[in-house]
């Protein structure tokens, strides 16, 4: 482990939906220079846990989160934390591309505008271009920025959503199965993009595709029945997992 402080740290995190406990005592760190993948069977709590990292679970009235989660050492569940600001710092990309029904330009410009990041039109233009470039979409859309974002292909839409997340200059990007609705080529582009974004942002990704976790991440966390079974370097998890349950899952012997 490095001596640099963790970008995000979770300690003893529990999540309840009403009386049902979905996440049990999870402790994990998200680092700047490493992509962290969360894997596990459906219902294992990995997406629920991911959503605690930018308080997306706040939108579900029955959900209750306990434990400590910090961003740069700051408790994100404290009353002093501005949730809107938190979600700007910890962006999210979802399974299904969900561009706004607006132009490509507006999709990216919306966030920086409402967060007051771009005082002038020229600066906003610059943010839009930079974000689209980082998302690997600029060359494909630069001549039709006023077209609707929803007119793009699925893979392009997902990269547009990543550009939108990047536009507000986040520190952490959470991805919840960002490629599971995409074809293999579009998936490869997203994976390549994740590689390029590494180092600039701390990235956590939930994926059902173990090969994808193996390809894009440096750290892998295996969840099962709400608990974090094993957490380690990706190559170790996929070549010599310590836990029997991890091994059964990644070798395809699960249940």
């Amino acid at each position, binding site marked *: 482990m490095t001596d640099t402080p963790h970008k995000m740290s979770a300690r003893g995190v529990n999540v309840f939906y009403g009386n049902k406990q979905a996440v049990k005592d999870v402790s994990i760190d998200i680092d700047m220079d490493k992509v962290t993948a969360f894997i596990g069977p459906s219902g294992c709590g990995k997406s629920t846990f991911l959503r605690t990292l930018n308080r997306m679970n706040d939108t579900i009235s029955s959900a209750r989160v306990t434990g400590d989660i910090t961003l740069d050492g700051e408790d994100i569940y404290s009353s002093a934390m501005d949730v809107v600001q938190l979600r700007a710092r910890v962006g999210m990309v979802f399974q299904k591309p969900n561009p706004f029904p607006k132009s490509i330009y507006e999709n990216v410009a919306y966030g920086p505008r409402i967060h007051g990041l771009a005082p002038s039109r020229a600066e906003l233009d610059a943010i839009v271009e930079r974000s689209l470039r980082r998302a690997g979409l600029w060359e494909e859309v630069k001549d039709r920025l006023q077209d609707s974002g929803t007119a793009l292909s699925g893979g392009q839409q997902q990269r547009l959503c990543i550009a939108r997340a990047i536009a507000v200059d986040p520190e952490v990007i959470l991805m919840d199965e960002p490629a599971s609705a995409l074809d293999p080529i579009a998936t490869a582009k997203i994976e390549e993009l994740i590689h390029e974004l590494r180092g600039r942002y701390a990235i956590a990704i939930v994926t059902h595709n173990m090969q994808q976790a193996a390809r894009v991440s440096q750290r892998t966390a295996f969840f099962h029945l709400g608990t974090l079974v094993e957490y380690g370097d990706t190559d170790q998890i996929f*070549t*010599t997992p310590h836990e029997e349950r991890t*091994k059964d899952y*990644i070798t*395809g*012997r699960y*249940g």
Partner: protein
Amino acid sequence: MMGTGQEHTVKAFDQDIKQLRALISQMGGLAEQALHDAMKALQRGDTSLADQVRGKDKAIDAIESEVEKLVVRLIALRAPMADDLREVIAALKIAAVIERIGDYAKNVAKRVPLIHTEGEDRIEALSLLPSMAQMASDMVHDALDAFASRDAAGAARVCQRDSALDDFYDSIFRTLVTFMVENPRTVSQVAHLLFVAKNIERIGDHATNVAEMVYFAATGRYLADEAAAA
């Protein structure tokens, strides 16, 4: 121990792994047989048996390429992970090693007519070689048994036996050299016997390599590292 014994959700995967193990075991059986027959031919001066050993080596080579094809297909289609991946890679390497063992047996067979020449003197030292060959053959056998049963402890025990075989080789070497000095007319035959002894010693080294790979496949750890740490 590697594996829970539990089957894969995709049954065809288990079929492939089973087939891979069967090929390795078949290949190992042929290599053991080749060494056994080569030594028998050597003892009896049976050149036709020696010829058979040389001919059968092609069968071992054929299985090796079958293993290669199956491993490539398995990796491409099944994307094996963890102990599965280690086992598949180990199988590929073990097949190459068994092929080498087969070559050594073939080489022993090739020397039979050169050792048993017309009007030969009885070479007493010859009597020492079969038990050395038996020792090497047992190591190969046990290493492959360890592979079949995923037995890390068994694999480790095979590795420990290699030094005894090396000692055996050293003593045979001295005996043969002494014999040559005392019986100068047999020098060329006994020189071939030295190569035979060396071949058997190399077979033991290869059996040790197989055992090391079995250990890695079963545990994910390197035996050499463990020995260094101990």
